[in-house]
């Protein structure tokens, strides 16, 4: 896959990331204080961040997913972001919400926050890596146990 990539693939990913990060900077979501003001119902401006962002992306998805055209840099079809709904979506959302409410920072905003010189945010990013590792380790352990139980049942 990587050897067959279009030469513009990485530049487009990079430019998209820069614009995304610039937007996080302009919106001040890079400031945990601003996010906490939103969550404490003191400044509801963040509604417009998610609203405008999802409208733009929603427009792009609505238009392109109705076409039969393929993406120029990958020849992939244009799809929608539809993930299966299970218990994890709600449990994960709850845990994420508690973490977001405690820290005032989410992953994308944390990366952009590094760019504005907010070095203490590295603590949060280290925590995110640790959390991602812990859930991966735990889920793998659980699936191994499930496989063990299943094969014991067969035996």
């Amino acid at each position, binding site marked *: 896959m990587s050897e067959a990539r279009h030469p513009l693939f990485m530049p*487009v990913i*990079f430019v998209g990331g820069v614009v995304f990060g610039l937007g996080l900077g302009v919106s001040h*979501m890079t400031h945990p204080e601003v996010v906490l003001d939103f969550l404490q119902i003191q400044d509801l401006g963040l509604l417009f961040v998610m609203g*405008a962002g999802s409208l733009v992306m929603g427009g792009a998805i609505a238009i392109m997913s109705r076409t039969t055209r393929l993406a120029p840099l990958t020849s992939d079809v244009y799809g929608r*972001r*539809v993930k299966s709904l299970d218990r994890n979506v709600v449990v994960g959302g709850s845990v994420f919400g508690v973490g977001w*409410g405690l820290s005032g920072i989410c992953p994308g905003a944390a990366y952009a926050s*590094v760019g504005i010189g907010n070095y203490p945010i590295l603590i949060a990013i280290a925590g995110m890596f640790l959390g*991602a590792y812990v859930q991966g380790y735990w889920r793998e352990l659980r699936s191994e146990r499930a496989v063990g139980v299943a094969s014991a049942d067969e035996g």
Partner: protein
Amino acid sequence: MDPVAFIAGFFPNGIGRYLVGGLLIGVGVATIYLGTGIIAGASTFLETTLSYASGLSRFNRAKYVTSRDWRIVFTVGIVVGGAVYAVAFQDGIWVTQVQPWRLAVGGVLVGIGTRLGKGCTSGHGVCGVGSISNTSLINVVTFVGFAVGTALLVQAAGVSP
């Protein structure tokens, strides 16, 4: 009471910077989508990058290993985007006053929750809501609800900032 003044009270910083920031966030992910068909979220980077350091099979699934390089490029782009903003509009560096323990504990929970819940503020909140996906709408309502509750509780406990 004047309803306009009442509503304006919830927007002490106006809406301009939020609206423009949100539009740019949308244009950023839409650029990647239009060029590649990829719907990029920010939190998958955490797991795909762990595949460089961990042999755990969950992190080494094909869809993670094949996307881990561009996810790093995407993340570096986000950092650079923040830096572009800072150079253009900010006076020197900006440093949060939120207490380190909140960043640390909150960060761990964000790491667990976004990966368990299949996405974060950008993946579910912007791309999933833009896709009118029920899964994403349910996830967003859940995490915003818990976040508001948590922030209000922490504030009521006298922790600031």
